[in-house]
């Protein structure tokens, strides 16, 4: 337990309203958006400057408390769940955009700035920050960097990592670190910046982010294509890529997902169709026209059941917004939505859909699949009830077998959600014990005492402890 003295010191340094320790507060900082994992911290702090982060870390150090950074708690692998208790450092009050540099095309923001707020602020100056995770209205830029978040535009524009130019943060020992800069080229030593991106809060607490901005596309066209079987949709995706067309967005939704979204948004999505692709091409108007014609020709060639073009920008935005609600909308069907993040080389999409279907039947599960088809990044989501132990066991068997296939195909166990608590064992299968050992040595170099977000990505002891996803809000380990 944290001592009263430590609480007193924290209050002194950060102010009473920035230090929470009542049980009701601890309860609601013990989760993120990952199903089934929950653990109470001992204290939650809200620093509003680098100095306050350092001060909080120093006190945590003295108390021997694990430290878990948190943004808005929208992560999907348990990254911000304080799995071993300790201090949650919530960066939501460090939410200022510090600079939009129109000469160098960069923006610098504190970690707690909401992704969409950053997007809107740079858009107002005629600039474009492309990464757009499904939770962009809620998630913070710091959280995006820590998890290397992807999004709908990943296919053409890449993911968060591709835009991070510089990072500032605080290391486990309370020292300040700054890595990268506004220079387009930078090969000065190891790229610590790239190590920190996607480190899930295990190497440092990121407090400030400088991102690269680009000019926005001048034109875009949005297609909706309906399919009477999902395999054809997969084939369409592979053919479009093979035709050397890179749409900005190529999203897939299966029938279950279409129906859940339609229940929520009611915009006339095709309930009876097996699958739907949302495709967007953007860029210079001449190129958009050419690529749109190419996409249309391929959709006709593979015999998509119907092809529609968005009426206007507003309609296109409405469709993208609807797609962003997919995961949450699936939660309408059942109390528990177990979502995975399997990613395969794009040429293997159709095969992966077949495998998902085969396993769905084998394990008698209700599965909704959606995802970034153009990236080969699928989110097969098992709709289940955590109170039904038999069903949960089948769900885990389903993923176990699916990941075997994904790895066989040369894919990855996580495209964009991270390893966190949920996928440690799968990571080991993917990169082998040697890979885990190197990662552990890197972790040791940054955080010798292992106090930053312990229990994530891999466990501290040699063997990977078995993470049990228990029912409800209970301790995950």
């Amino acid at each position: 337990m944290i001592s009263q003295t430590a609480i007193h010191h924290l209050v002194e340094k950060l102010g009473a309203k920035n230090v929470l320790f009542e049980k009701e507060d601890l309860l609601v900082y013990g989760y993120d958006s990952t199903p089934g994992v929950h653990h109470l911290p001992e204290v939650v702090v809200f620093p509003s400057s680098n100095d306050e982060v350092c001060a909080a870390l120093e006190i945590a150090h003295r108390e021997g408390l694990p430290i878990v950074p948190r943004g808005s708690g929208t992560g999907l692998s348990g990254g911000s769940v304080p799995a071993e208790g300790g201090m949650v450092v919530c960066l939501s009050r460090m939410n200022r955009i510090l600079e939009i540099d129109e000469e160098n095309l960069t923006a610098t923001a504190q970690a707690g700035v909401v992704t969409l707020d950053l997007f809107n602020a740079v858009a107002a100056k005629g600039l474009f920050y492309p990464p757009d995770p499904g939770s962009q209205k809620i998630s913070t830029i710091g959280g995006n960097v820590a998890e290397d978040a992807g999004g709908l535009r990943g296919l053409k524009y890449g993911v968060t990592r591709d835009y991070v130019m510089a990072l500032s943060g605080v290391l486990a020992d309370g020292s300040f670190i700054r890595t990268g800069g506004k220079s387009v080229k930078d090969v000065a030593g190891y790229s610590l910046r790239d190590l920190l991106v996607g480190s899930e809060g295990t190497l440092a607490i990121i407090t400030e982010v400088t991102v690269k901005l680009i000019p926005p596309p001048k034109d875009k066209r949005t297609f909706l294509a309906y399919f009477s079987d999902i395999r054809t949709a997969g084939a369409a995706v592979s053919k479009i890529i093979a035709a050397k067309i890179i749409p900005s967005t190529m999203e897939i939704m299966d029938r279950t997902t279409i129906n859940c979204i339609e229940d929520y948004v009611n915009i006339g999505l095709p309930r009876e169709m097996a699958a739907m692709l949302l495709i967007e091409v953007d860029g210079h108007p001449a190129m958009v026209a050419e690529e749109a014609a190419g996409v249309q020709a391929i959709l006709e060639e593979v015999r998509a059941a119907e092809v529609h073009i968005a009426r206007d920008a507003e309609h296109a935005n409405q469709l993208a917004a609807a797609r962003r609600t997919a995961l949450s909308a699936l939660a309408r069907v059942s109390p528990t939505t177990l979502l995975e993040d399997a990613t395969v080389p794009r040429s293997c999409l159709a095969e992966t859909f077949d495998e998902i279907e085969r396993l769905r039947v084998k394990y008698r599960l209700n599965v909704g699949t959606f995802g970034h088809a153009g990236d080969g990044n699928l989110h097969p989501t098992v709709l289940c009830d955590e109170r039904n132990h038999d069903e949960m066991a089948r769900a885990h068997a389903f993923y176990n077998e699916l990941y075997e296939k994904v790895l066989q195909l040369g894919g990855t166990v996580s495209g964009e959600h991270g390893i966190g608590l949920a996928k440690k064992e799968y990571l080991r299968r993917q990169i082998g014990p040697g890979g885990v050992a190197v990662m552990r040595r890197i972790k040791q170099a940054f955080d010798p005492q292992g106090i930053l977000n312990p229990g994530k990505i891999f466990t501290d002891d040699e063997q990977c402890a078995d993470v049990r996803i228990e029912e409800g809000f209970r301790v995950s380990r």
Partner: protein
Amino acid sequence: MSHDEPMGNFVTRDAPAYEGILQCMRCGFCLPTCPTYALTGRERSSPRGRVALARAVAENRLEFTPAVKEEAFFCLDCRACTTACPSGVHAGEIMEACRSQVHEVFPTTGLAGGLRRFILGKMVPSPELLETSMIPARLYQKLGIQWLMRHSGLLKLAPRWMEKAEGMLPPLQAPLRTQLPEIVPARGEKRGRVAFFLGCVMTLLYAEVSRQTVRVLAHQGFEVITPKQQKCCGAPHMNEGDPETARSLARHNLDLFLDLDVDAIVTDCAGCGAVLKDYEEMLEGRADHARLALFREKVRDISEFLVEVGLRTEDLRSLDLSVTYHEPCHLCHAQGISTQPRKILKAIPGVELREMKESSWCCGSAATFGLKFTEESQQILDRKLANVAATGADALVTANPGCHLQLAWGLRQAGMEQPVLHLMEVLGKALPE
């Protein structure tokens, strides 16, 4: 609402249903839409946090503690999170159900408890008692005591909520219920027959607004029946955690209105409309389902009704008025009525609608929230007033008495000149004599 034994540390049958709580998968889509979370930045005052607290209580991981009680009442019940929730979680209703636990777990005794029981259990359910209770307030205004109080600074000595409540009182008239004929004939070509549900706040504080609503309905070709025996819709009781009295009021109104041979049951109060549409759920298993469904089928907000039947605009006068529209939470979030009021405004000749930013963000009134949490309510109101001011519109239009009171008070305090008008007052001005 659950009919089974309450789960975990909940105590009464009106506890939140566990299935509804489990529906939340904690995606956080609600966070940016919650006015109280925007104020505190504290997860427990967000819809996701509140539902998690309810879940912890249901799972015996948390007692029904004073902090849970506080959050249940700190929730504005504005339902913005319901609109934003892709999973279909009703955090506002879950908090209403938590409020019903409060009086079991922390019973109020003595004068305060007695007063609460008298107001909710006796006074509000009786139109006559309610009307009588307003006589002192009317005298207070008529005899010039109000002028004296406001100018003497005496009110500054009272608690803040009392000063605010006094300041919110609009100029009072005699209650409309006793004056309105039970049948008002249709004008022009008759299109149908409707019942008018006259809300308590409307009849007592905004008699002139509802008078216009009836006038509009008649002008639109509807015969209007306003049954004198109607009682409070039950919204204050649901809000204060007294579902039992709410249900008995609902049963009374259900029987009264279903006995009338009408095409629709129309109200001009967003709060009443939302609860009337909820009777089906409130009385599920306690009244005949077919009757509940029939009642639900007939309830309409006035703007919803007018757009559905098609607004007759041939003989409307031109107004030369720019307006901005504040969406009452219980209209846009609780009933999903957002386009209809705008369609009506745009159909009135000479009216220019200037959209404000965040038109569907709560004004901070929220039943008694504005009096219980005066400071927080003021911060929410300030945000709204800034958005109103930015439009430069001549008038602020809304469609709910709670918002009306709060906004009129706020504009006056801020020295802003725009009047607050109910949508039906605007339409009423455009009607031929």
